[in-house]
Each structure stands twice: as structure tokens, then as C-alpha cells.
């Protein structure tokens, strides 16, 4: 008798488990809203067909300066999961939008709120913080997605967030995360080799904004100076002069600029110093080649390769 009951219970649970994925796929698709396309690309990898992913900004936009348009509220109001880069990157537009979104699920501390920077080894923390340094980020440098190993942490944060809002699909998200991790690790090894073959290890570079410390860490570059040393404050002519001199004397071969800055001034610096100017996509969607999180690094390394080759054989 007890055996029969046990057997029945076992069968019942098998039937329930078999039905469950069917139920879940029949259920409404989740809506995941991310602030940037990088986060959107990673969220798509993890969420698969269980969620629709929308982004609030495009990769060619400066993520510090996105307009808090009311149309973004319409997306946030319906979101099941919200993912931000964090570390105050979006401080100028996200807190107000969240506050006006009328969506308790995605408020900071709610089940549908994901700070992608959680668990990432943040650079430039505890640096001197004061407005005399320009528009600095007191919580460290927020451009952490530019090191592919941080992509794994971001993906894990998104996976945990998805599992919180759709616990029935936890196994599905775990599987997709494992697959993403495997593919990303494989590619990371390849990128590292590419970077070494291009001679990026220890290569001195100058960048426009402080967007690239994670990228530099990942591929061995050494950022020695900035076109705009104080974020948000246009550089003084004297700084540009000194920078040009430094680049000449140290034979710095590469000047990296984000696509949303006016390239006129950095182009002049590059020309006067003999460096190659490269407009590097800092995000998925910044150029047509950077379609997803993988092709972002492909596109960056290809752009650097091209710039360096162009410089060596003028």
C-alpha cells in the first residue's frame, strides 16, 4: 500500500515536472530592461527565449549623458527585471527614471533590480574624489564590461536576477549561463593571443576619457595619459601641448577615442605626435560590427590592428 502511494507520488511528481516547462513557456515572456546594449547582449545570452530584452540607450551614446525621456518610463513600468551598469555610471538619468517608473519590482533592493557591478573587482576605487577633479565617479570606474572576464560576473548577476523573478526557469538560465561561460572563456583565450600577437602587452596608449582601464587590464595595454584628464571638463590648451610632447618623446603609438566625442582635437594630437587615432567601440551597438558581446571585442581588436598597421606602413 505504502509502496503504491510512493509510486503514485513519484509518478505525480514526474508528471508535474514534465508539465512545468510547458507551463512556463506558455506563460507571458519576461521583459528585461537594461540601461546599455552591452548588458542587453549579455541578458539575451542568458535569458534566451524566456525573455524579451530592451535597452534604454544605444551603444553609440555616451552612457553618462542619456536623456531621461518619458518614453523610457513606458519600458520601465512593464519591466520584470532591470539591469544597470552601476557604480554611478547612470546617476544622471536612472535614479529619477526608476523613481517615476511606478514599478516596485525593479526598485533598488527589489527582486527585479540588478546592479551588474556586484562582485566585480572595481578599479580606481578610493582615488581622490572631489569636484576639482571634474565629474569623477566616487564609487570607482564604472566601465567594467570592457574586460571580458567581468562579462562572466555580469552574466552571473543577470542569471541570479532572472532566477529571482522566474524561479521556475532557474535550471534553464543555469544551463544558458554555463554555455555562455564556456564560449566566452574559449574566446577570451583567443583574444589574449591576438592581443599578444599584435604587441599590445605593455603598449603605451593615450585615451580620451577614462573609459578604458578594464580593457587595458584585459589586453595588457598601459594607459599613460588622457586627452580629457578631468572627466567632463574640456582640456586646457596647455594640457594638449604637454600631451603631444609626451606622446612624441615616449613614442606612444595609439590614441583611443570613444565614438561620441568630437574627434577633431584628438585627431590633431595624433597627427602632431605621430600616433594612430583609433575610434574604438566602447559598447555593443557602437559600430555595426559590434553586434553582441563577443563581436564587441573582435571589433575592438580589429580596429586596433588596423590602426597600428596603418601607422607602421604609412
Amino acid at each position, binding site marked *: 500500500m505504502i509502496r503504491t502511494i510512493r509510486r503514485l507520488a513519484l509518478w505525480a511528481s514526474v508528471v508535474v515536472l514534465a508539465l512545468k516547462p510547458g507551463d512556463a513557456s506558455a506563460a507571458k515572456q519576461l521583459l528585461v530592461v537594461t540601461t546599455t546594449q552591452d548588458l542587453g547582449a549579455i541578458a539575451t545570452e542568458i535569458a534566451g527565449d524566456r525573455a524579451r530584452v530592451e535597452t534604454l540607450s544605444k551603444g*553609440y551614446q555616451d552612457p553618462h549623458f542619456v536623456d531621461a525621456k518619458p518614453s523610457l518610463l513606458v519600458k520601465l513600468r512593464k519591466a520584470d527585471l532591470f539591469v544597470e551598469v552601476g557604480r554611478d555610471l547612470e546617476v544622471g538619468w536612472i535614479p529619477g*527614471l526608476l523613481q517615476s517608473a511606478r514599478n516596485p519590482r525593479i526598485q533598488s533592493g527589489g527582486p527585479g533590480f540588478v546592479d551588474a557591478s556586484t562582485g566585480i573587482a572595481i578599479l580606481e576605487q578610493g582615488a581622490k574624489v572631489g569636484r576639482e577633479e571634474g565629474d569623477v565617479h566616487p*564609487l570607482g570606474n564604472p566601465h567594467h564590461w570592457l574586460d571580458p572576464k567581468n562579462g562572466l560576473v555580469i552574466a552571473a548577476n543577470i542569471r541570479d536576477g532572472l532566477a529571482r523573478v522566474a524561479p521556475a526557469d532557474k535550471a534553464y538560465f543555469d544551463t544558458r549561463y554555463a554555455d555562455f561561460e564556456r564560449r566566452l572563456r574559449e574566446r577570451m583565450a583567443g583574444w589574449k593571443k591576438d592581443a599578444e600577437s599584435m604587441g599590445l602587452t605593455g603598449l603605451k596608449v593615450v585615451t580620451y576619457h577614462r573609459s578604458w582601464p578594464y580593457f587595458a587590464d584585459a589586453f595588457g595595454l598601459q594607459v599613460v595619459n588622457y586627452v580629457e584628464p578631468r572627466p567632463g571638463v574640456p582640456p586646457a590648451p596647455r594640457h594638449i601641448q604637454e600631451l603631444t610632447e609626451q606622446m612624441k618623446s615616449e613614442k606612444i603609438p595609439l590614441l583611443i577615442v570613444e565614438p561620441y566625442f568630437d574627434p577633431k582635437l584628438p585627431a590633431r594630437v595624433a597627427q602632431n605626435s605621430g600616433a594612430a587615432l583609433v575610434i574604438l567601440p566602447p559598447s555593443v551597438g557602437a559600430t555595426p560590427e559590434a553586434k553582441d558581446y563577443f563581436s564587441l571585442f573582435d571589433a575592438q581588436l580589429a580596429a586596433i590592428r588596423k590602426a597600428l598597421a596603418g601607422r607602421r606602413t604609412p
Partner: protein
Amino acid sequence: MRQALGVVFARAALLSCCWAACATVASAQTPSSPSALPAGASLLNPNVSVIGWFQGEAGDQLKEEGTQAFALREAELGFQANVDPYSRADFFIAVDPEEGVDLEEGYLTLVSLPAGFGVKVGKFRNNFGKFNRTHPPETPFADRPLVAERFFGEEGLASMGASVSWLAPLPFYLNFDAEATNTPESVEAPAFAAYRGRDLLYVGRVSTFANFGESANLTLGVSAASGENALSLSDTTNAVEPSRATVYGGDLTFHWKNPRRAIYRSLLAQVEWMERSAEPLGGDDVKRSGGFAMAEYQFARRWRAGGRYDWSRSLDPAVSGTAIGALYYVTFSPSEFSRVSLQMRTRDLENGSNESRYYLKTTFNIGPHGAHPF
């Protein structure tokens, strides 16, 4: 900074004025990250910010009035933080030489209500039109538009009460606001006049928004405010008859900004119109209207130029004709956190007199990074 003054008054498109606190709190809730955050209690302090508004003024009338050439118009202190998981609090205290210390706004916002509702209680700037929501130091102007000054006073319409807003569950933005607050005194907002604080001021607003491509967008709003109007009935008989004044308003805002070059060029244009309808003692309904149109172009990363055209009738039924005015300005922002604006204003009043004024408006902000304007 909470106010890139250039376009900040349009920020009232969103329901909230202030928000730096959220992000800080959010980041503070990441215990697993290796962190060099300032330890402990200071993270639970509210975000504190101060905006200084220093102004120089010149013009013939000022000499007659005996106004001093330079003045600290206002120091605005902001304290903002989440209260608990359900609500946040925002306090703005204005300190100025004339009025002393004044609670400009102080309200609690419930952020976790279901079904698209938002509730605010306390003292706040009423959600009438777009311009009224912006704190005076943060508007692009050294003065207030003539119609705003005549209808809602030097500081704008602000009162104590409660507000409910609802964001419709539609694929586009459509928001409704309803507020019930104390009717302000006529010295504060001349369009209304409280009588023993009996009757409330009711304010309603509907606003919508549309994108035209990724660079351009339009915001459209209609508002109405109905409040006690005791001045028209208490003069002679002292009889208390119910009388109300109602102000209707419409506003249209156009924004242009190429998101690929967001920090270099932008255009903002706005028209706001309002009409007051009130019944004077023993007379017919008197309608008085006015409005302003402004445009501002950011022609370099740190430079903006703008102009405003004003027209307004007087609320006094005995005055006929329309006053008109114009304001021109050039604004330089050394950084996101400070700005200097040179402005010139002319006005032709109903009595045939005209005046010119010159302003140097300087504002600066210290404290955590607040919202960028929209």
C-alpha cells in the same frame, strides 16, 4: 548636477525633482563587491546638496526702487534619501535675505504602489504646466516669465497637500496627475486668494510625449487649477460667498539632440499659455490670459544662447491692454556644476511705461551628482 540650468526647467517632464540618493543607496547595497566605500553610517545620511544663486542686476528702475546691485538671491539646500523600501523623502530649504529660511519643498513619495500609481504628500511645487515645477535657481532665466509672475507669484505655485499620479499602461507615455492642496495666499499666488483656509486648491494635469526619430521629441501637457478666490467677495459686505478662480494651461516642448553627439549640440523650444477665469464681486466672469515662448540653442559644449517672449494681461479687471516683454541670454557652463549667464530683459507695460534690466546670474552646486536635465 541636479540642474544643468540650460534646459533644466523642462526636467519637470518627469515627476520627480531629485534623485541622486537612489543610486548611492543602490551601490551601497552591494556587499559582495570588493569595496573601498566610506564605511558605515555616513552611507545612511541623506544626500546633501547646496545650490548657490548669486545675481547682479542693473537698470534704471532698480535705482528708484533702491535695490542693491548684487545679491545672493538664494541658497537652496537639498536633503534627499530613501525612507524605507516603500518611500523616499525630499526636502529643499531656500535661504534668502528677504524671506529668510523657507521650506521650499518637503515631501514624501511612495515608490512601491501597484498599478502605475504614485503618491506624494507634503509641501511641493504644484504640477501645473512645465515651468512651475522647476526651482527658481535652476531655470535658465534670471527672472520669471511675466505670466508666471503675475499668476503664481515670485516663487511659483507651491502648497501643502497630496498628489496622486497615474502612468497609463499604454505603449506610449500618458500620465495623469491630481493634486489637492491648501489654497495659497494671494500675496504668494495672485491668481488665488485663500479665505480662512477653508477651500482647497485642486490641480490636474495630463501630459504625453512622442519621439520623432532618436533626436527629436515633443512633450504636450494640459493643466487646470481651481482654488479659492476670496478677494472678490470679502471687501464690502464681508459676506462669505463661495467663489473660485480657475486657471487653465497648455504647454508644448520640443527637444532636439543628436544622441551620438549628446554633449555638444541641443535645441529646446517651449510655449506655455494660461488663462484665468474668475468672478469679481457682482460682476461678470473675467478672463485674463498670458504666456511665454522660449528657445535655447546649445552651440558649443559649454555655451548656450536663448531668448524668451512674454505676453500677459493683468489680473486686475480695471487694467486693460497687454504687457509684453523679451529676455535674451548667453550662458557659459565651466563644468556641469556651475554656470554664468548674462541676460537682458525689456518690458512694455499696460500703462505705457517700459523698462530694461540687465542680469548676471551665477549658479553653482555642491554635493552628490544629481540628475541631468531633460
